[in-house]
């Protein structure tokens, strides 16, 4: 009976985790700076600690929308950047009894469409317990890449083109600060001699 109860609790946790994963793209987009935290807590008290956000918005580093209030950089997890398959493990439900010997299996969910594309979630279960959740088909570059594309779409026709060389009649050149030595090889030096 107890075992059955555990299984039901586990299933509830699993369902919640899937809902969280599904629901996250919107959340991550609306509040990219606070990716985790406010995930719903499973009814059974088996808090699945929001596996999704770090997976769906791999870029948890300060987003473009970060305002001064976010300066402290609280809640940033720099390591998450670029992790296209960032994983987040769910905490095991608190089992008070020793778990029975169970096998591990992997389940891949359906493809879910969201604003920036589609993704699938893969969960690994040990018995009825989720021990791993991974977002598949995550966009490369994650949220930042998407932001860049957003910006790109708002730019003029020359946006996003491969950087090309231009030659023109120049008076001066703007560039990253060169040392006095590097100046000698610079285009500016050539112009100054002209």
């Amino acid at each position, binding site marked *: 009976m107890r075992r059955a109860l555990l299984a039901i609790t586990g299933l509830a946790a699993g369902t919640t985790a899937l809902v969280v994963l599904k629901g996250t793209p919107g959340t991550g987009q609306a509040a990219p700076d606070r990716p985790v935290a406010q995930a719903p807590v499973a009814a059974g008290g088996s808090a699945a600690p929001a596996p999704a956000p770090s997976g769906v918005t791999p870029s948890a580093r300060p987003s473009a929308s970060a305002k001064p209030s976010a300066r402290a950089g609280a809640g940033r997890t720099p390591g998450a950047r670029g992790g296209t398959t960032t994983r987040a493990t769910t905490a095991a439900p608190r089992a008070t009894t020793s778990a029975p010997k169970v096998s591990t299996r992997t389940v891949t969910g359906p493809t879910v469409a969201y604003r920036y594309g589609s993704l699938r979630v893969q969960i690994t279960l040990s018995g009825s317990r989720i021990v791993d959740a991974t977002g598949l088909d995550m966009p490369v570059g994650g949220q930042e890449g998407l932001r860049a594309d957003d910006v790109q779409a708002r730019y003029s026709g020359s946006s996003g083109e491969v950087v090309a*060389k231009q030659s023109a009649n120049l008076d*001066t050149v703007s560039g990253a600060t060169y040392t006095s030595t590097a100046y000698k090889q610079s285009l500016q030096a050539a112009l100054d001699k002209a």
Partner: protein
Amino acid sequence: MTLVAAARRPGLRRVEQIMGTAISLDLADDLPAATLHELAGDTFAWLREVDARFSTYRADSEVCRLDRGELPLAGASADLRAVLERCADLWTGTDGYFDAYATGRLDPSGYVKGWAAQVASDRLVAAGAPNHCVNAGGDVRVRGHAATGDPWRIGVRHPWDPAATCLVLTGTDLAVATSGVYERGHHVVDPRRGAPATGLRSVTVVGPDLGVADAYATAAVAMGEAGIGWLDRLPGPWRHAVVTDDARLLHSRALPLVP
């Protein structure tokens, strides 16, 4: 020959090594040679003075003495106090990505070079030389027209080829600052992570003030790709161009490009 060249092209051009870089001055006004030399002399004297007072490499500079606590803030020059105020404003205005204390000690260099060149340009206008170009190690302030009579043409260095440009801007009243990781390696540090910034190879900011433009460009590089969105939300007169690490070029629609 020299006389012919001088007759065809009025003004004066001079380069000096100050602040660890080369500063090029192009005076395009058709003024007497003695006047032009005096103007150039005053300009470079000002830039050397700024270097002596604001350098973090000179132990006796005002900045170093203030940083060591030997000079009380109240005893600092009006210039230094103004610079520190601007740096504080820029820290707020860039979400903390422009940080004069990023290295753990006071280092306002990221603002000072552009500011010094901007002040030099302002002084030239006041002194009766409204047509000039000041280029402080890649940070450019142009006013009026070049000696050819055309608006100034400012190339933006190609981030992978020191001998090429990737954009050419034109204007009669522009500050153009470029920050990038190609000249001195990944030296721009994301002050929040304490790690070198990646994602953007080069950021050029165009606007009315060279000190602010330089600080904005540095901050955007420190932000990485998020800097693109940040730049896009800058108000009114500010324009920008960005080259990403994967060689994409993005720029404001209203960037003053050569037609």
